[in-house]
């Protein structure tokens, strides 16, 4: 099994965190994993993206050459990356921020109104965890528990009070993706 996922959006949406937490969870499950962020002047003006590759076998090239999932958290990200997804792959759209969908018809199209649902949960910041919940649902690449454990291990104990919220977000994300 091999998953190549692109997370893309703008700075402040917690794009890097989505990727890192997923990678951490994959490590906890003893999978091979690579996380590669975009960086530098690309980040001025607010775009941010990263890729995660999860595999049972050695990951050779660190570049996601055949991403099977794009998580587009805002409009420019969709435009930038939609053509990269392999035929038969999937594009997950944050429908709170993006009103159209991809023009590609050789991919599976999925939607999650991440910001709306996050607002409903009382904290727009967890939109990323909602989208991540959808990712888990769509790919099954790691378990929700691993994600929670990853969050727990990467957060200082004084921040552990936000874990329940994140757990809820993950669950909503996996339930409400369509």
């Amino acid at each position, binding site marked *: 099994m091999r998953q190549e996922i692109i997370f893309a959006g703008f700075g402040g949406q917690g794009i890097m965190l989505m990727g890192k937490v997923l990678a951490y969870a994959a490590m906890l499950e003893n999978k091979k994993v690579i996380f590669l962020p975009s960086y530098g*002047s690309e980040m001025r003006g*607010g775009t941010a993206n990263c890729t995660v590759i999860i595999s049972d076998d050695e990951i050779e090239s660190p570049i996601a050459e055949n991403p099977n999932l794009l998580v587009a958290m805002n409009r420019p990200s969709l435009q930038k990356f939609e053509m990269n997804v392999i035929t038969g792959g999937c594009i997950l759209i944050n429908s709170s921020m993006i009103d159209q969908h991809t023009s590609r018809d050789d991919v599976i199209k999925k939607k999650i109104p991440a910001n709306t649902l996050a607002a409903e949960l009382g904290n727009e910041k967890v939109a990323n965890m909602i989208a991540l919940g959808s990712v888990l649902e769509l790919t099954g690449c790691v378990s929700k528990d691993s994600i929670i454990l990853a969050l727990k291990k990467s957060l200082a104990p004084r921040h552990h009070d936000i874990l329940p919220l994140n757990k809820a977000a993950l669950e909503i994300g996996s339930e409400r993706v369509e």
Partner: protein
Amino acid sequence: MKKVIVKPKVLHNIPWHYCPGCTHGIVHRLIAEVIDEMDLQKDAVGVASVGCSCFNYDYFDIDMSAAAHGRAPAVATGIKRVQPGRLVFTYQGDGDLCAIGTAEAIHAAVRGENITIIFYNNGIYGMTGGQMAPTSLPDMKTTTSPYGRNVQETGFPIKMTEMLALQEGCVYAERTKVSNPASINKTKKAIRKAFELQLSRAGFTIVEILGTCPTNWGLDPLQAIKWMEEKLEKQYPTGILKNSKGDSVICDKK
């Protein structure tokens, strides 16, 4: 209806890559306005430095040269020596000017090189992601001073423009800020003054402009403006530091 105020002619009509609320853009516009008003589009050469403003050669519709990190004053010197009649200015951040470029700036001032440095001081390395600059404030948290700038270990903020003003070759040094309409107008006047002195071959001129870096300060644009006025300006009082072709000379304020 008459166009009263529009984007200056010497600015290309493309969006800028700066973060929301970053005041680099204001300073760019001011420079462009002055060049327009002095009708110098064909006579001006800008020297871009390395920092968030490093792509500004794309923004100004004038001859531009993009210098290596810190070396803009040397590049400007090379240009000015060949074309002494042109308006030659550098645009440099505090990292570029006060760290790696210290020597080049000081020696341009020592030589009384007829160039103008536009010095954008936001007390941090913006481009590279918020590292400490020699201009960072005491106790300021940055990615390379995660526990706050420890003055015992890293010293006090550098007095850069003061050092430049100290040299005889420097004829004009003013520190301004771009935190509200009034200070923005004042900054424009300072830039114009420096350019005029340069064209009269009076010597080296510098305008230090306190600006923001909301992104790396971790503040929203308005908070950043406030922080600039409350903290940055306290360390770096605005005013004329040297005007040897004019009158007042305020040097070390301490």
